[in-house]
């Protein structure tokens, strides 16, 4: 028994007081309103012919162009692109976590693979397109592969760095408790590197969207990248801008989902911004 009663806690530990967040909340709302204000401003500038309409279509024109596409076709474009990004991102991220874990755990594998991965990482997305078309045809496979390549490298880098950066002291705790290599990975290395892995996943997801556009610019009949190149070829800046706006919106939405998951999974982090 504790010999000193003052050691005992009178009640469950209170969570630290939350900073009054109403002031910050206002800035958050303002942050969401900012793009809307910008669009409204553009509308006014185009209507007043300060900005020429054939270079920057008015937001109302863009909305109308999207409206004329019809909900079903629009949904098909968005759905096709989103599914490709989802599939490519999941495949790329899964492969990156597997390779990253192997290279993070083994100095030998790292020494073996690192130069090749560094070289592959510096290949621009568009350079892959002809190769993948040649190897895989024009079906879904080359598109999803390209997206997976885009998502792979940031996640891979984050996993390797995350495992490398785990505090040696925590690894020692695992040693004292005689954890096997697999247990050490699951119980200490992986959770400790999750903050970095999540940062990598978010970077990987945004790159997946970019690579998706590259994939669809070349050989596609559906998708936002197709919409983009179709608008360009048929001289429809309203469609081009419509596709750009949709890409921005979808990118933001998917990142928000990932960020939400990150905050849930990493609620244990002791940072000034959490809680």
């Amino acid at each position, binding site marked *: 028994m504790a010999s*000193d009663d003052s050691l005992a806690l009178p009640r469950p530990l209170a969570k630290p007081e939350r900073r009054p967040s109403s002031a910050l909340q206002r800035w958050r709302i303002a942050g969401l309103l900012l793009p809307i204000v910008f669009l409204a401003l553009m509308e006014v500038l185009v209507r007043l012919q300060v900005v020429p309409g054939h270079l920057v279509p008015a937001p109302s024109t863009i909305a109308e162009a999207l409206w004329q596409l019809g909900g079903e076709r629009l949904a098909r474009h968005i759905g096709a692109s989103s599914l490709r990004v989802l599939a490519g991102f999941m495949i790329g991220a899964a492969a990156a976590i597997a390779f990253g874990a192997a290279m993070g755990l083994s100095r030998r594998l790292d020494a073996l693979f690192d130069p090749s991965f560094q070289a592959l990482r510096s290949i621009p997305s568009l350079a892959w397109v002809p190769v993948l078309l040649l190897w895989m045809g024009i079906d879904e496979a080359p598109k999803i592969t390209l997206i997976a390549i885009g998502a792979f490298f940031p996640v891979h880098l984050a996993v390797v760095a995350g495992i490398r950066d785990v505090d040696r002291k925590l690894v020692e705790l695992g040693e004292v408790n005689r954890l096997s290599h697999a247990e050490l990975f699951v119980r200490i290395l992986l959770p400790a590197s999750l903050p970095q892995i999540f940062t990598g996943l978010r970077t990987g997801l945004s790159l997946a969207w970019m690579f998706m556009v590259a994939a669809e610019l070349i050989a596609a009949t559906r998708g936002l990248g197709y919409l983009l190149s179709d608008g360009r070829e048929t001289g429809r800046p309203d469609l081009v801008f419509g596709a750009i706006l949709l890409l921005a919106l979808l990118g933001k939405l998917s990142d928000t989902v990932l960020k939400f998951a990150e905050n849930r999974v990493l609620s244990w982090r002791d940072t000034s911004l959490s809680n």
Partner: protein
Amino acid sequence: MLTLPRTADALLDVRVSGKRYDTRVVLDSISLTIKAGEIVSLVGPSGCGKSTLLRIIAGLDRNYDGDVLLDSQRQQGPSSRVGVVFQEPRLLPWLDVANNVAFPAGPRRGSDPRVGELLAQVGLANARSSLPKHLSGGMAQRVAIARGLFTNPDLLLLDEPFSAVDAITRMRLQDLLLSLVSGGKTATLLVTHDLDEALYLADRVLLMTPSGHGGAGRIAREIAIPDGRPRDRNGPWLAAARGKLLESLGVSGS
């Protein structure tokens, strides 16, 4: 290799004939034994190799000449019969207090009845579902002590466990440690640089100094503390014992 006779009834029997980092010798012929249930302090100035010795005993450092026997069994790496408490709490920040205490048992074992028992003993029964980020330094170290004791080890090793907390908390934690290990079956080896802490807690104090060849650490003096417990933190025995240690350290004891 030393060929001194082994102590038959020792729980822990350590013989290190040499330990070097690169070319620098950090430990010179060292032998120490600990009996079951005994509390031993290893005290000495910074850099004398006492933490290195503790890491060897814990099985974290296997690159030395000599051997570590636990119940006459040669140790090759960490043992489940030895608990370790480090200088910092080293709690896993993603696990709540209960799961941190039960970490040696395996993943998600926080509901083990032993957890509640230990947390009550360290005065943290209400903190079992708290995350480490909500704990003060002293609380976190109490959780670490509970984790070190989770497996009911025969030997508890502590590496300057109270050096990072304030003086008042340190005294409380010292008394808490005594309440957990004294009179029990758990033998304790406490590494510290605080002479008073070493003398207050231990049955036997080993003074380590860099007096070997090239500044290598050696055990320069051993003092047995006969007094029963609880001890008076201001008693004359303490001044006398401290005087002996200071004399061996070459520091004026007045």
